[in-house]
């Protein structure tokens, strides 16, 4: 019985804390987390497709750059890359600004935290997406590419009409994985001061001393975000692979 009343107390405390403003802050945290993830995925998609293309290049130099990119950014801890971009970026920006005289020699030009964060997470996401795109390209039936050549399509037409639609189809399941990784990586950019879910939960936990409550809540919210994305990607997969499933 004592346990139950204890639980009741806990719930009402949680309710009071959330109503006192932490609830709204957590919702904002979710919004920022999604913003970071979406922008990072887009940056990653652009970088990933360029890197995948570089890996198939006839030029050895480009291949080397592509290989190095995926090796480095998949092989290093995410946190290190975020520090490198945020603090390293601040140092570079400050150096450039000082030498051009835009700021005085004692001022510091900070890397914008959102920009630094999404660049870092986007670059990591790009390394994983590059591998997804590469695998998808290899899975395209060679004969279809040959037919596109035989019918006089230019390299651009072949890419637009045959390669891209099929890479996207084949890439959807892999991109679903990268999306989940990227949602989780977005938590790491709390170190740059972007008020996403992780940072907000952290702030709430420390200022109210209800760590268990807020970290559990944040955990549930992350889980909700990652599990909602699964059926969305499943649906996208069914749509893009409709030519391979039997018509109803």
């Amino acid at each position, binding site marked *: 019985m004592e346990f139950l009343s204890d639980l009741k107390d806990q719930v009402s405390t949680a309710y009071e804390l959330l109503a006192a403003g932490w609830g709204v802050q957590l919702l904002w945290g979710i919004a920022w987390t999604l913003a970071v993830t979406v922008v990072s995925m887009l940056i990653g998609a652009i970088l990933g497709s360029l890197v995948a293309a570089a890996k198939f290049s006839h030029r050895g130099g480009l291949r080397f750059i592509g290989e190095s990119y995926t090796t480095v950014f998949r092989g290093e801890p995410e946190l290190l890359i975020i520090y490198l971009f945020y603090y390293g970026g601040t140092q570079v920006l400050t150096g450039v600004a000082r030498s051009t005289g835009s700021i005085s020699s004692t001022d510091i030009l900070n890397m914008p935290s959102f920009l630094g964060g999404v660049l870092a997470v986007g670059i990591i996401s790009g390394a994983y997406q590059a591998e997804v795109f590469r695998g998808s390209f290899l899975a395209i*039936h060679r004969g279809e590419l040959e037919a596109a050549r035989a*019918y*006089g399509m230019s390299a651009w037409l072949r890419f637009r*009409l045959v390669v891209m639609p*099929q890479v996207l*189809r084949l890439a959807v399941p892999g991109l679903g994985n990268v999306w989940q990784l990227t949602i989780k990586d977005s938590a790491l950019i709390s170190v740059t001061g972007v008020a996403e879910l992780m940072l907000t939960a952290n702030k709430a936990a420390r200022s109210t001393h209800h760590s268990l409550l807020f970290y559990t809540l944040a955990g549930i919210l992350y889980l909700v975000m990652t599990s909602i994305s699964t059926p969305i990607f499943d649906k996208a997969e069914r749509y893009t692979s409709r030519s391979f499933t039997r018509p109803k």
Partner: protein
Amino acid sequence: MSANVAAAAKAAPSSDGTPAISVKDLRKCFGDHEVLKGISLEAHKGDVISILGSSGSGKSTMLRCINLLETPDSGEVRVDGELIKMRRGRDGHQVPADIRQVERIRANLAMVFQSFNLWSHMTVLENLVAAPTHVLKRPRAECLEQAEALLKRVGIWERRNYYPPHMSGGQQQRAAIARALAMNPKVMLFDEPTSALDPELVGEVLRVMRSLAEEGRTMLVVTHEMGFARDVSSKVMFLHKGEVDSVGEPKEMFARPPTPQFKQFIANFNK
């Protein structure tokens, strides 16, 4: 050489006797293995040439050199009198000098493949209009109309909204032939079009090919179908170990094989 190229570019259409396809002294190696050892061939408008040979004789490679899916090491290919311009690449091998020219010529040489190679993410109808609208830049409505007519002709109109993976091999190959026809090609190249089909599906594809031959299409057909070679084609060419072993009128060739190699070849088929 450049004078030649200019003259070829101005060449009149094939009605004056210019061959639709002219191949001279084609050579091609894969590594140390010389697959084509100097092949020459001429196809005039309306010719249906069956190219026979055992596997490894170079017949598919020859066909693929004509539309530059393989780059020949030396020799020349002319389509309607126009020489496909080549140059020496950095590694010493020949490469096409002008990829735009190659793309333009390819659009005139529609190819039908052994494994169909329809674009699997497009419906049959989309397969038929993709190249005519994007490569030949013809109006979409006109291409759709032609595509439907062609699908009726090859007997799979009711499958027009199917995706290729949902169709039988015979239907896919007929769709692929319709895709080739949609280009209004000068010459059709068939690369073993029935070899990947179940025996009971071969007939439906051969019937379509026979009707194309009868309407005077210019066709180069790499095939193992002896019946088609003997009864439908206007000329038979037999390749042996990368060389033209014999060429001739089909009835004559099959009645009196001109070389021991060809005699052996058809004997193996009749077993």
